[in-house]
């Protein structure tokens, strides 16, 4: 009934339906999150007996003084700044072009969407070959413009750029689809009204398309920033289980992975995870604050 009051019985019944999902979420999400927050505060910890004999902020002090962690944070920020804006702009441009193509748009959509459904490992293998210093397609293409061969994957100066290029390419597909949905949701009447109001094609783009797409642009950029902060699998696959030449591609999550799986410093790994958590939280809050003013729903 629509007018039924919430009672203990009805609430209990609802909880029963929610229980299966709740059990899974608590076991695999909530509990680990709480646990890793706690773990980041362990200063004396015996993994084998699971005994904690000291608490404090020593792990964070360690991170504060660790040059490797500084490098990881720096690389992560460069990666985010390198990937997200270009992805947003490039996928918007491609979506706009695809929207203009009427005849074989389905074919193009599929082609652009393919990277999203392809395994990262497979993509990394292909790009590994494309980035090859002697036989790679990228260097071959650049040679047309007189650029000397670049050792993309072995030169520390270029390894992060190589990762950024591959990540942009990989994330385009999904974002293009999102932008296409956004473009199709804009009522055609606004364009007619704007045309009547004397707006030419460029003015219609800046005054109708861009503001009306702002919710999608917001979604794509928040999604992109969070995803880019967590980058790991692309590095692992592209550099065969190393953080790139001379740690050129060491990111926060890769640092966390190293501390956890190769050095067994669990509390340090947990602390770096907490730092990452607050970093993402901070950036997302800034974006939310910005969206209040500039995103029109």
């Amino acid at each position, binding site marked *: 009934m629509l007018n039924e009051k919430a009672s203990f019985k009805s609430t209990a019944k609802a909880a029963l339906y929610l229980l299966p999902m709740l059990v899974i979420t608590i076991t695999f999400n909530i509990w680990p999150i709480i646990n890793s927050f706690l773990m980041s505060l362990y200063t004396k910890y015996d993994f084998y007996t699971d005994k904690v004999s000291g608490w404090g902020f020593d792990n964070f002090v360690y991170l504060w003084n660790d040059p490797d962690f500084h490098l990881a944070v720096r690389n992560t920020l460069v990666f985010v700044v390198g990937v997200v804006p270009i992805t947003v702009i490039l996928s918007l441009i491609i979506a706009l072009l695809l929207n203009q193509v009427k005849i074989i748009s389905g074919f193009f959509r599929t082609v652009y969407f393919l990277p999203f459904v392809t395994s990262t490992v497979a993509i990394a293998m292909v790009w590994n070959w494309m980035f090859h210093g002697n036989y790679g397609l990228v260097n071959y293409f650049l040679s047309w413009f007189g650029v000397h061969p670049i050792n993309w994957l072995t030169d520390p100066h270029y390894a992060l750029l190589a990762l950024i290029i591959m990540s942009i390419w990989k994330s385009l597909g999904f974002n293009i689809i999102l932008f296409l949905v956004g473009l199709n949701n804009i009522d055609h*009447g606004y364009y*007619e*009204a*704007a045309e009547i*109001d*004397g*707006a030419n094609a460029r003015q219609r783009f800046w*005054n109708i398309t861009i503001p*009306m797409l*702002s919710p999608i642009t917001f979604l794509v950029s928040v999604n992109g920033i969070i995803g880019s902060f967590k980058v790991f699998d692309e590095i692992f696959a592209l550099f065969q289980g190393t953080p790139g030449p001379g740690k050129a591609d060491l990111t926060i999550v890769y640092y966390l992975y190293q501390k956890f799986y190769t050095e067994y410093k669990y509390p340090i790994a947990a602390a770096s995870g907490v730092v990452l958590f607050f970093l993402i939280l901070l950036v997302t809050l800034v974006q939310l604050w910005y969206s209040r003013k500039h995103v029109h729903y």
Partner: protein
Amino acid sequence: MKVTFKDVTMSYDGKTDTLKDLNFTIPDGTLVSLLGPSGGGKTTTLNLISGLLSPTAGQIFFGDTDVTKKDALARKVGMVFQNYSLYPHLSVLDNIAFPLKMAKVSKAERHAKAKDLAKLVHVEDQLDKKPGALSGGQQQRVAIARALAKSPSLLLLDEPLSNLDARLRIEMREEIRRIQRETGVTTIFVTHDQDEALHISDNIMVLANGSIQQFSSPQTLYDQPNNLFVAKFIGEPVINTIPAQALAADLAGAVPEDILKQAETAGIRSEALIPYDAGENVLAKLHGKITQSSKYGREATANITYNGEHLLSTEMAGVSGSQPELDFYLTKSGFFLFDQSGALIFGGESHAK
């Protein structure tokens, strides 16, 4: 500005013509309604004028200028859309000023102009709100102000009142009339509501099946319909239509014999059936039976059976009940005869006088 269509044909798919050989001239400074049933070509005609569509064949003139090949950008008309299409991300002030912004008018100047227009349409106290926060009537006013912002030579309104409730519709149609009078802009108004068209327009163009059925003043449309379609479309209650054959005996003498022979359908307005002899104005005396009568407010209707045909009269108040079987009179005005093709062959003012 004067608008002229010359042999305009419009086809969306290249097979069926939505509009066929349209010819008309809308005089400068008037308010003209495009009236007709759905799918009759009203909105197509309006979009041809605005430049959002270009005709398959024929020419369109604004004044003496051929604008057939010009797009909406170049024609500089103002338009109010059925759903208003106000830009949801802009404030009321920015919405009204938008056409001026596109024309690169300075900010101070366009805001001053927008405020003047807001005053004209009575939304000056809503300037900072977003369109979503306005009522339907207010949105309508803002849309009109926006359409007027660039001082267009033509104001086009596409079913502007269809999203409003009944009372607001009457208020807004008076407002549109007032704004049109104050600005003197040539206005073209699309509607499917005859009541709206009759109240607001200087002239009405009835469009159906892709061609003009009649283009005349509202009164002429009612008193002298060109054909059966217009007679049936205009007027509330709907005109009585019965086979001319049923009336033949009573009309003998009153109507020339050759016309009576061609007549296929007779149209009788409900107010043309009266219970008393009005002398000069009476065409014929009929005999029938009142089967049902009802009264709604100031309106009374009576159903009459005449020669096996049903007629509706609005003039029989007070007669009913006591004398179900009666003589009644058919007046000259409000009586029409149509031939097989539906064209008017008898009736209308020229015969009634």
